[in-house]
């Protein structure tokens, strides 16, 4: 600790941190541009200048850049003296010499860090009378708009995109006051994290092109804390709505989960909420029906002697799933996961439950000092985890920094010192991945061989772990090397997941982490689940679609109630068709039309995540609450409310006590103790600050009295929100709410996202009062850990001539059900294909124009061949989850290549 004096006041602070970090953490206002808490200091903009005195007697002092100055005991600083104030104002003046005066038409206006810092620095009047520089802009793809004239050359964009996220197609060009940030030529930004430029850029150079289509100023957006629904990571987000449309998504900081950033799937994948394919009315046999008719019809079916089953969903909240379980009864509730998917998910859950390795948060992943990735293409399935893992390779080189006396936040010096050296990172995957550039070694193997490699690594760490037999020399050596590195690491991490579709891969990952723990290493494990509540629904119910099918075959229930899920994405076409044939009535509760709703006899329109509240469990096992952003037009309502209505109609006693969502969660917690901690993850609906609710609308929200004037000149009463402490209103408590209820980041003088520093305990640290969310799965350490080594090791894959083994390939843009409804994401996603090694293709007489038939369950699909050099011989890559290609889910095993048909 150090005692420092700033403008005559003493503070106790942590020594060695940089002064800007410290000052902001103390709540002081000090302007800055080039510094970013996740990117560190480079001292380029000179905006954070303060005056430092040598000692008590020094009267003159000298200007120093706060971001480049480590704090030390006895330090004396002034922020307020005229010289440093003038300097900071002049820096703004300089930046403004070329900055256009286009705030009124600039998308950043109203949440612009440059505006904020200009006001903070006090440079109010332009006295520059000369011409400004102009640039050409580039086309950067569907997501990011480029307006270079607004650039203030803070270098943040490239430092994020290139240095932090590993992107190699955005850079800085030219020099002097003509530095240009862009691509070599027009084109789509290649990084999956390009959307963060919108938040990283302190002004309006890189702005949200999707928002532009339905632009709304920050102060006119109604916002609420929410959770991304597009993968299992569970990033914290802030969606914003206006006029009943979701307009954009911003990052919501959570130091344990996503930190400062989001992936592009999460940021731009929200258009499904505004989709024309939304279900907006209840329907009975495709005809619009009234709410009450629909309800009594479904209840009619429910009361039929043969009863009903319910199929839950990994993309619906715990509460909605639980309500459905209540409606149909525990025995007749199934979790909606397909056959293979459910096996994998329950296996992964078992591994996390049994420990002994701790399920790693994203923050833990970032801090790992040795990583083994088994079979999961993280960038495609859990993108933000990939961004965090990318940082982990910096940890080992960082260890030697202290020798050279370089603090970790000194980004320029750190990168120059470390150059290209990276900590250990091993990737075993079926094909090239987007993290290969940071990998120490990569292995391209068939899934079973990935598992065998993992088993061998475990064995080399702990001899009592079973070893695969007949391992080839090369893999054996690799396993030894990996084992050695992991064993000697302080915080090794094993990463895997359901992505490979192979249980043995998960088991191997479990063995490696167990072996590490048994040799006394604090290993972490990160298992990726595919969807936002896959883990939650698995914890709620073990039985999946497989059991549902069996049940249906045996009992022929009268109706199946399908909750927020398209079953055709879960199993072979014919299986789902059969299920639907076996039950006479299909009822769907969903928000988008899909193949399943097309079969439904009754449909109830439910809210999307943005129109609902609830809790979900991410892949780490963290239960997190999301809050409704806006009220959808009647009769759309939350799934759980529809189910409650059904329950009430059936006369269910429990449902009568379900007045709000808290009541549902309480029932859930009392019936399913494993999920009881979820109660701690939400702030109950009756929470008030100074007797007030927390408003979803900013205090500058405009047009409230006018926005509906075309419908009715009387301003309607704002909708009530019985389910949360938030209000659909501008009125309420405008101070800082508990961390989980932060609907937006704003503080006096801080209109941009950078205001976040006012919400953190320390810059870059946890949110004040602790990060929201609650971990459900803590490992059972050491001896007490109930599990044991998995021992069914698969045989080595041996390619058979003319045959190919199907391997799952995932795409950040394309494999996710909901995000592909965004036109931008649809544009970037691949169309169905089958990827083959060119040599295999040659052997089978195929070229890149060929099409081949790939079996899917009882049918087959004709797919276009693409060459993929990185695949192992004998393996075919099949893209999962593409909207026009649901059959992929039913593809597995080997198939004989049918001679290509030339087009």
């Amino acid at each position, binding site marked *: 600790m150090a005692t420092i004096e700033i403008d005559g006041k003493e503070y106790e602070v942590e020594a060695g941190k940089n002064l800007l970090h410290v000052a902001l953490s103390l709540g002081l206002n000090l302007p800055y541009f080039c510094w970013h808490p996740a990117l560190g200091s480079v001292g380029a903009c000179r905006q954070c200048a303060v005056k430092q005195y040598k000692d008590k007697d020094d009267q003159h002092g000298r200007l120093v850049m706060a971001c480049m100055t480590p704090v030390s005991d006895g330090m004396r600083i002034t922020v307020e003296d005229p010289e440093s104030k003038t300097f900071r104002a002049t820096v703004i003046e300089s930046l403004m010499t070329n900055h256009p005066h286009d705030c009124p038409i600039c998308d950043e206006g109203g949440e612009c860090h440059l505006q904020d810092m200009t006001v903070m620095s006090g440079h109010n009047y332009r006295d520059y009378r000369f011409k400004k520089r102009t640039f050409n802009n580039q086309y950067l793809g569907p997501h990011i708009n480029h307006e270079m004239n607004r650039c203030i050359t803070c270098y943040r964009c490239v430092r994020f995109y290139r240095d932090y996220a590993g992107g190699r197609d955005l850079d*800085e060009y030219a020099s002097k006051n003509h530095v240009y940030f862009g691509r*070599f030529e027009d084109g789509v930004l290649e990084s999956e994290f390009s959307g963060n430029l919108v938040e990283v850029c302190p002004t309006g150079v890189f702005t949200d092109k999707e928002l532009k289509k339905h632009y709304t100023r920050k102060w006119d957006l109604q916002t609420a804390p929410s959770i991304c629904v597009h993968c299992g990571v569970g990033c914290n987000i802030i969606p914003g709505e206006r006029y009943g449309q979701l307009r954009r998504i911003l990052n919501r900081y959570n130091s344990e989960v996503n930190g400062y950033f989001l992936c592009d799937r999460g940021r731009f994948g929200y258009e499904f909420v505004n989709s024309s394919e939304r279900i907006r009315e209840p329907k009975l046999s495709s005809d619009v029906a009234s709410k009450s008719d629909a309800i009594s019809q479904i209840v009619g079916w429910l009361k039929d002697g043969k009863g009903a089953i319910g199929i839950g969903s990994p993309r619906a909240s715990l509460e909605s799933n639980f309500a459905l379980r209540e409606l149909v009864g525990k025995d007749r509730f199934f979790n909606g996961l397909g056959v293979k998917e459910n096996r994998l998910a329950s296996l992964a859950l078992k591994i996390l439950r049994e420990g002994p390795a701790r399920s790693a948060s994203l923050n833990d992943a970032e801090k790992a000092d040795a990583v083994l990735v088994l079979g999961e293409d993280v960038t495609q399935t859990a993108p933000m985890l990939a961004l965090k893992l990318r940082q982990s390779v910096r940890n080992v080189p960082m260890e030697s920094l202290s020798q050279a006396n370089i603090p970790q936040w000194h980004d320029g010096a750190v990168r120059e010192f470390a*150059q290209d050296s990276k900590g250990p990172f091993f990737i075993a995957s079926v094909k090239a991945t987007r993290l290969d550039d940071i990998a120490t070694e990569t292995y391209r193997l068939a899934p079973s061989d990935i598992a065998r490699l993992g088993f061998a690594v475990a064995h080399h760490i702990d001899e009592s772990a079973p070893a695969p037999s007949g391992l080839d020399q090369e893999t054996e050596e690799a396993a030894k090397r990996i084992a050695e590195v992991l064993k000697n690491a302080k915080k090794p991490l094993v990463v895997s997941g359901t992505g490979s579709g192979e249980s043995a891969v998960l088991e191997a990952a479990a063995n490696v982490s167990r072996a590490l723990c048994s040799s006394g290493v604090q290993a972490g494990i990160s298992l990726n689940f595919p969807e936002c509540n896959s883990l939650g629904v698995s914890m709620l119910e073990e039985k999946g679609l497989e059991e549902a099918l069996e049940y249906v075959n045996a009992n022929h229930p009268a109706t199946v109630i399908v909750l927020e899920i398209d079953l055709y994405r879960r199993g072979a076409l014919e299986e789902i068709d059969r299920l639907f044939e076996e039950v006479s009535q299909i009822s769907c509760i969903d928000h988008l039309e899909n193949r399943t709703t097309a079969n439904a006899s009754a449909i109830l329109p439910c809210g999307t995540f943005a129109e609902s509240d609830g809790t979900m469990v991410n892949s780490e096992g963290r239960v997190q609450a999301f809050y409704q952003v806006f009220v959808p037009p009647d009769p759309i309502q939350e799934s759980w409310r529809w189910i409650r209505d059904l329950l009430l109609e059936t006369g269910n006693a429990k449902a009568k006590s379900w007045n709000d969502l808290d009541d549902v969660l309480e029932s859930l917690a009392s019936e399913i103790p494993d999920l009881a901690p979820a109660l701690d993850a939400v702030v109950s609906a009756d929470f008030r600050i100074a007797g007030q609710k927390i408003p979803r609308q900013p205090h500058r929200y405009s047009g409230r009295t006018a926005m509906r004037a075309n419908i009715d000149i009387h301003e309607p009463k704002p909708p009530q929100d019985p389910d949360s402490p938030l209000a659909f209103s501008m009125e309420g408590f405008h101070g800082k709410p508990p961390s989980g209820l932060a609907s937006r980041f704003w503080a006096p003088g801080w209109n941009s996202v950078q205001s976040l520093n006012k919400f953190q305990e320390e810059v870059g640290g946890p949110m004040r009062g602790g990060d929201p969310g609650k971990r459900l799965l803590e490992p059972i350490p050491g001896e007490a850990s109930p599990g044991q080594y998995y021992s069914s090791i698969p045989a080595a894959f041996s390619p058979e001539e003319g045959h190919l083994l199907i391997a799952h390939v995932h795409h950040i843009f394309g494999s996710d059900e909901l995000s592909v409804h965004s036109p931008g994401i649809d544009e970037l996603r691949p169309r169905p294909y089958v990827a083959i090694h060119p040599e295999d293709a040659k052997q089978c007489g195929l070229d890149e124009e060929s099409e081949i038939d790939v079996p899917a369950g009882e049918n087959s699909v004709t797919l276009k061949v693409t060459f993929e050099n990185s695949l192992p011989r004998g393996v075919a890559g099949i893209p999962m989850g593409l909207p026009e290609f649901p059959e992929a889910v039913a593809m597995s095993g080997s198939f004989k290549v049918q001679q290509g048909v030339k087009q």
Partner: protein
Amino acid sequence: MLTSEERTEIEAEIAHYEQKQAACIEAMKIVQKHRGWLSDDGIRDVAEIMEMTPAELDSVATFYNLLFRQPVGRHVVMVCDSVSCWIMGYENIRQYLMDKLEIGMGETTQDGRFTLLPICCLGNCDRAPAMMVGEDLHQDLTPEKIDAILEKYA
């Protein structure tokens, strides 16, 4: 595509450094020497051998004064515009050159013979004004001298 000559010269340079990228400026100079300037394709070619992306390489290329990202004439005339030459009459020299070649600074003559560029101090301040034509230094410039000098460059 790099010619085999370009490739050989570049590989020799790569050997001088601990890291490959360190040779990228030299590599660009080599390609510029052979092709006159660095076109987008030139950048792509060098980027490939340096294991850099075109964006990464162009970021470096556009920083330096003597890497030409636009076509230049057969002879590049670089007139020193720094202070000693300025005192000694740079402005007249520049004007004379522009009039004679009928181009402005930064431009290339119609026949592709000369490109006129300013350059900072050539370290020839005691013999100012000075200029370079290609690799040759010319000093104590006067209009008459310039006439004679330019004639040497076909």
